[in-house]
């Protein structure tokens, strides 16, 4: 049986095709202004890459903040449910998930069946999200994809004390003016995200093995900083950014 999962996030739209328990293909595009159009586009593209027709897909589940705008989906689940399902299928041993997305971050605790036991969500503030990193990348004139690699060279991360994205940006600008090394500033930014996310996760009571999902999981600097703050080992799948879409596709198979 072939199923699909569509995850409409605040920055990117993701699609995954799953067939008989195996991931066939995944795709990421920018969401842009029109979530509904993005959902359709990412779905058509993921199918096209594998030369599949829409009629060959049995069931579709949508997720993410734009889940209700995916009109062709059979059902929608929250991204918390889908990240849990996705992480469980990628690695059945996972007991906790930290999902750092574009506009919020979440910590999720799973039971031994991979079901969501408890969760917490930060939506108050952009610090601790992908958007925060985007703002910083612009201020530092560095491509966001290079952030991870640059930051792990740092031996002396800068201190970013502001908790607000706007003020943190001006703090970063003054660090640049002071002549601090770019790698130290970036490492400092990663540590400040890790501090936010880890205190939220610790309050929930996460346990190992932990997986980091969401777009920010692609940034090795953030993952390392989180490991340091939590004092725990973290796993990252190569599917980190599309975990929600994969979970949605697996949930579609059980509809």
């Amino acid at each position, binding site marked *: 049986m072939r199923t699909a999962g569509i995850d409409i996030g605040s920055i990117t739209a993701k699609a995954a095709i799953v067939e008989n328990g195996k991931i066939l293909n995944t795709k990421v595009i920018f969401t842009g202004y029109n979530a509904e159009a993005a959902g359709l586009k990412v779905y058509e593209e993921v199918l096209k890459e594998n030369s599949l027709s829409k009629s060959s897909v049995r069931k579709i589940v949508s997720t993410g*903040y734009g889940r209700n705008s995916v009109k062709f989906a059979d059902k929608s*689940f*929250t*991204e*918390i*449910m889908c990240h849990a399902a996705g992480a469980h299928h990628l690695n059945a041993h996972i007991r906790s998930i930290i999902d750092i997305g574009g506009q919020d971050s979440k910590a999720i605790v799973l039971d031994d069946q991979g079901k969501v*036991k408890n*969760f917490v969500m930060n*939506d*108050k503030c952009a610090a601790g999200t992908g958007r925060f990193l985007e703002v910083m990348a612009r201020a530092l004139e560095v491509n966001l994809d290079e952030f991870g690699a640059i930051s792990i060279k740092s031996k002396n991360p800068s201190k970013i004390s502001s908790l607000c994205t706007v003020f943190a940006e001006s703090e970063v600008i003054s660090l640049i003016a002071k002549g601090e090394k770019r790698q130290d500033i970036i490492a400092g930014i990663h540590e400040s995200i890790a501090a936010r996310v880890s205190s939220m996760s610790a309050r929930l009571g996460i346990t190992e093995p932990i997986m980091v999902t969401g777009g920010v999981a692609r940034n090795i600097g953030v993952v390392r900083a989180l490991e340091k703050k939590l004092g725990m080992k973290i796993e990252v799948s190569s599917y980190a950014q599309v975990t929600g879409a994969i979970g949605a596709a697996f949930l579609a198979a059980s509809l």
Partner: protein
Amino acid sequence: MKKLTELKKVVSNPYAYVRKYKKQSGKKVVGYFCSYAPEELIWAAGALPLRMFGTSENIHLADTHLQSYCCSLVRGILEEALANRLDFLDGVVFPHTCDSFQRLSDIWRLNITGQFHIDVVLPVKLDTPSAKRYLYDVLEKFRKDLGDALGVKITDKMLAKSIKTYNKIRRLIATLYELRSKNPQILSGADFHAIIKAAMIMDRDYFLEALSEIVGQLKKAKPAKATGGAKRLVISGSVCSHPDIYDIIENSGGVVVGDDLCTGYRYFEGIMDEKKPPLKAITKRYLDRIICPAKHFQLKERGENLIRTVKKSKADGVVFLLLKFCDPHAFDYPYIKEMLEAKKIPCLLLDMEAELPPVGQLQTRFETFVQIL
């Protein structure tokens, strides 16, 4: 239901209702700030007790007096007063509860003129014999102060009449809670919320009449088709003046079947003994009612009450709606959460301000919570 439509109209613009009511009835209007205000005495004195709910406007005037760590309820109420939107009030009554409200009382006294101002200094510990004697004295003093301010002598006969009215309202509200707990679909959460809120705004005699009619009709109403497996939730917190939250919960596959709210069951619970001397009966009700976290009654009473509410309403889980910076509630949360967990009752914590968080993210939380129940 015509009466329900009428109540909803009042709730959507309480100030317009009160202004018109005041003009037509010639009655005085007394603002009060929490469910510990003994409003039975205000109504007995012939004035309209009006609960203050804060504001949906941007808060800027209040910020010159209050630190940002005060809750949005306290800041919002002060904003309304400073912006002159409460100029119809003849007086205000501040019961002694949390710190922020005590300071609000001081600020009010210094800045809001042209109305009388009474602090009702309630005991904090309610489970001691001296609290009982003390509360009685406090209420006796309140009776005199309020009577002086309003230019009436509040007699036992007036009190007894008011007690009867409140008892009738409280019995009917208890019936309404039961009806909705049994058949949540007979009345939407938002409509239920409107009725409860109207009870703190409207002429109490007229409200009683409207409520009797509504409850009578609901008793006869056949439940519409069952809400296919909606999860039953109990809400716990201080004030909840967001009718939207009930819609969001219902859209997420849940339904509110009980509460432990200051603008909910805590406000109504407790029938007064009509055979007792009236002030003694009122005293007993305020000592015995379900406490709020700014009061003390044995060590774990709030947690135990919440567990009783969950069991009685056969709820699947509890949602804590805590106002940000409400420290009494925040201090109680960890122990109550532990007690719920020990009983395997799942709970969800949402902290919020006068403005709700973005609907999308709220919906994600409720949907997930309902899905894992």
